[in-house]
C-alpha cells in the first residue's frame, strides 16, 4: 500500500473496528484543546472552517472593515485555503502594503521566526492568526506554537484519522463568545453531511484513481464555512485517537530519521523539538532524481515541495524539499530503512561526485 508523506491517509487499516466501536462507546476522553491551560478552544469541522471563523471575528470586531482589506498570507498554500479567506478578507503576499492581519503558517510543523514576525505585528498593530494545521504540537524558544497570536487554527485530521476535524484557539474571552455564536448561526448540517461523506469516500479511495472524487472534494471546500461545528461522531472518533500515543510515535519516528541522517545536510535547519507533520529534506540538485526514486521505492507518494528556509512569512526563501513521512502508520524500522536508503541515494554527504 502507498504511504503518503502528508497526513496519514484515512485508510481502512487505520480505521479499525475498535475505532468504530469508539464512536459509539467512548467516554469523555482526552481534551481536544492542544493548548490547554490558556485561552479558549472551539472544536470545528475543519481547519479551513476555523480560519474562516477567525477572519469572520476580525470582521465582526471591526479589525477587518471589509473583504477587500489585505491579510498577509504565506505563499504556496493550497488554493482552497485562500478561497475560503476571500469570504472575509483579501489574501496578500505583500508585507509592504496596508495590512489588517497576518496568517502565520508553521509549515510541516516547523516554527516560523516568531521573534521577527511578532515584532512586525506589534509595530503595525496587527492581529496574528497562527496556522497550526501542521503544528498540533511543537514549540518555539520553549513556548507552544499557537500561543503567540490572537487565534490559532488546528487541523486534527492531518494527524489523526478522523475524517475531518479542526479547531480554533482564541486568546480573548469576548472573541470566544462571538465565535461560538457565529458558528451556531452559520452551521448547516446537510452541508456537513455532504462534506463528511465526500471526504470519507475520497480518503478511502486515495490509493486508487480518485479523479471524480477530487472534484467532489473541491466542491465541498466551497461550503466549509457553512458547517463550522464539529460533528458529534467525529468528536468521539477523535477522542479515541487522542488517547493513542500517536504524537509520541510521530516524535519517535522523527528522532529515528534524524539519527539515520545525522551528519548530512539533508536535515539542514530543521529543529529537533518539532513534532513534524512530515519532514522536508534538503536534497542536493544533482541527487534529486536518485533521492526521489529511493523514497518512492518504499511506496511513498512524494515529490519536491516548496519549504520556507528563512521561516519568515515576511521575507521567505522558498526552496524545493523532498517530503518524507514520519506519521504513526510507520514504525521505527521502516523509518530507519527509508532514512538509510535516502542517505545512500544522496551519496558523499551531498557533495558532487
Amino acid at each position, binding site marked *: 500500500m502507498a504511504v503518503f508523506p502528508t497526513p496519514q491517509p484515512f485508510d481502512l487499516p487505520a480505521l479499525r473496528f475498535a475505532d468504530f466501536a469508539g464512536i459509539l462507546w467512548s467516554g469523555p476522553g482526552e481534551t481536544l484543546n492542544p493548548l490547554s491551560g490558556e485561552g479558549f478552544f472551539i472544536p470545528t469541522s475543519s481547519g479551513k472552517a476555523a480560519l474562516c471563523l477567525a477572519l469572520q471575528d476580525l470582521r465582526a470586531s471591526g479589525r477587518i472593515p471589509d473583504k*477587500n482589506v*489585505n491579510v498577509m498570507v504565506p*505563499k*504556496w498554500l493550497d*488554493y482552497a485555503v*485562500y*478561497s475560503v479567506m*476571500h*469570504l472575509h478578507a*483579501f*489574501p*496578500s*503576499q*505583500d508585507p*509592504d*502594503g*496596508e495590512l489588517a492581519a497576518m496568517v502565520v503558517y508553521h509549515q510541516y510543523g516547523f516554527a516560523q521566526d516568531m521573534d521577527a514576525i511578532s515584532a512586525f505585528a506589534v509595530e503595525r498593530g496587527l492581529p496574528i492568526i497562527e496556522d497550526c494545521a501542521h503544528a498540533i504540537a511543537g514549540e518555539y524558544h520553549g513556548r507552544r506554537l499557537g500561543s503567540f497570536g490572537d487565534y490559532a487554527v488546528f487541523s486534527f485530521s492531518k494527524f489523526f484519522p478522523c475524517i475531518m476535524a479542526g479547531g480554533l484557539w482564541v486568546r480573548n474571552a469576548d472573541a470566544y463568545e462571538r465565535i461560538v455564536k457565529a458558528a451556531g448561526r452559520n452551521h*448547516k448540517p*446537510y*452541508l456537513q453531511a*455532504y462534506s463528511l461523506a465526500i471526504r470519507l469516500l475520497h480518503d478511502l479511495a486515495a490509493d486508487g484513481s480518485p*479523479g*471524480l472524487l*477530487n*472534484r467532489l472534494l*473541491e*466542491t*465541498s*471546500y*466551497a*461550503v466549509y464555512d*457553512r458547517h463550522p461545528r464539529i460533528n458529534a461522531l467525529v468528536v468521539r472518533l477523535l477522542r479515541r485517537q487522542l488517547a493513542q500515543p500517536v504524537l509520541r510515535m510521530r516524535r519517535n519516528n522523527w528522532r529515528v530519521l534524524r539519527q539515520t541522517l545525522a551528519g548530512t545536510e539533508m536535515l539542514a535547519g530543521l529543529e529537533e523539538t518539532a513534532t513534524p507533520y512530515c519532514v522536508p529534506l534538503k536534497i542536493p540538485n544533482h541527487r534529486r532524481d536518485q533521492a526521489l526514486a529511493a523514497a518512492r521505492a518504499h511506496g511513498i507518494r512524494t515529490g519536491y515541495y516548496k519549504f520556507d528556509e528563512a521561516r519568515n512569512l515576511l521575507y521567505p526563501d522558498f526552496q524545493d524539499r523532498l517530503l518524507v513521512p514520519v506519521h504513526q502508520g510507520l514504525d521505527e524500522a521502516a523509518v530507519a530503512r527509508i532514512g538509510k536508503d535516502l542517505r545512500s541515494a544522496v551519496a558523499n554527504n551531498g557533495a558532487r561526485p
Partner: protein
Amino acid sequence: MIVRETQPYSLVGQAVALRKSNGAPLAWREEDGWTMTLCARSALRAMLLYLRETGVLADKTAQILTPQWACTTLYQTFHKLCFPANRPNRDLSGVMIYHQYGFPQNMAAISERCREDGLFVIENSVNCFDSHWRNCKDVDQDLRIGSIFSFPKLFPVVLGGALQTDDARLGQFARDLAPGEATSRFARFWSYWARLLDDKGRYSIIGGPLVMNQALAYAISDYSQDMPATTKSILTVPAVKAWLDRRRDNYTRLYESLESTGAMDHLERGAIPYVAPLKVPDGKAEGIAAALDEEGFRIGIYHFDTNRNVFEPHFERMVLVPVHAGLGNDDMDRIAATVRSRL
C-alpha cells in the same frame, strides 16, 4: 414576479433550443478569435493555463492585479493557477481590468501604466458583449492577452461564456481543452443544472439548498470548457441583435427619465450595460433599493468604481437597476418613477 438583473428565460425555450437549432449562425465567430466556453471562468482558466505553459506566469505565486469587490469564485479560479492581488505592488505580472456593469475602464491610463510596468492585460468583459479594449484606439493592443465573457448576464441562457483573443495559439489552446476529460463533463452537467435550478427556485422554500448547490458546482465549473448546445442554438445573430437593441433602448429611456436627477451623470449615454448603477445622495440608497424591491425589482446596493481604473479605484455605493431585454417601456418607466419618488 421578481425581476432580477439578468434577462429571464423560460424552460420551454430552453427545451426547444435543446431539441433543435434554428440554423442561424452563432453571434460570435471562431475566425474572429472567439472560443465559446462553459462560463467566463472556464475562459479565464484556459487563459491562465496558457500563460503558465508559456512561462509568462512562472508559477502559482505569480501575481495578477484583480478588481476589488469581484465574486469570490473569480478569485478562486485565479488561485488555482496564480495569485490575485487587489492592490498594485512591484511583483505584479499582469492586470485584469473589469468593465464593471459594462461601463469601460479608463483604458488609456491603464494601457500607459501597463506599458511602463511591463504588465499584460486580461480583459474581464463579463458585463459586456464585445471587447472594449479591442475597439479602443488609445491603447496598446499588444498588451491584451484576451477577454472573457459571460452570456447569462446579458442573454436568456442558463450557462455560457467565451474567450476572445487575437493570439491564434491561445485560441487553439482553449479549443483543445474542450470537451475535456470525464470530470470536466461532470462539472459541466452539474454546473448547468445547478444554475438552472437556482435561477428557477431561488425564491422558493428550497431556495437555500439550491443556492448552496450552485456554490458547490461553481467550485468546479471552470474545469469544463464546452459551451452547452442549448446556449449555442439560442445565441444566434438575429436574436442577439434584437436583445441588445432592446437593452440599449431600455437604458436610454432610463437615462432620459433620470437625467435631471443627476443619478446617472457618472455614466455614458448610449451604453448597453449589464445594469445601471444609480448614484444617489447619502442615506437614500437603502430606501430606493427597498422601494424597487417592493415593486418586484430585486438587485440591491453594490460598489461601483467611479474612477474606472483598477490601479486607483474609487468605489461608491450605488443602487443597481435592471435594463435587460426582458423589460419593456412600462417597466423602465416604473423603475424611473420609483427612483424619483424616493430621491
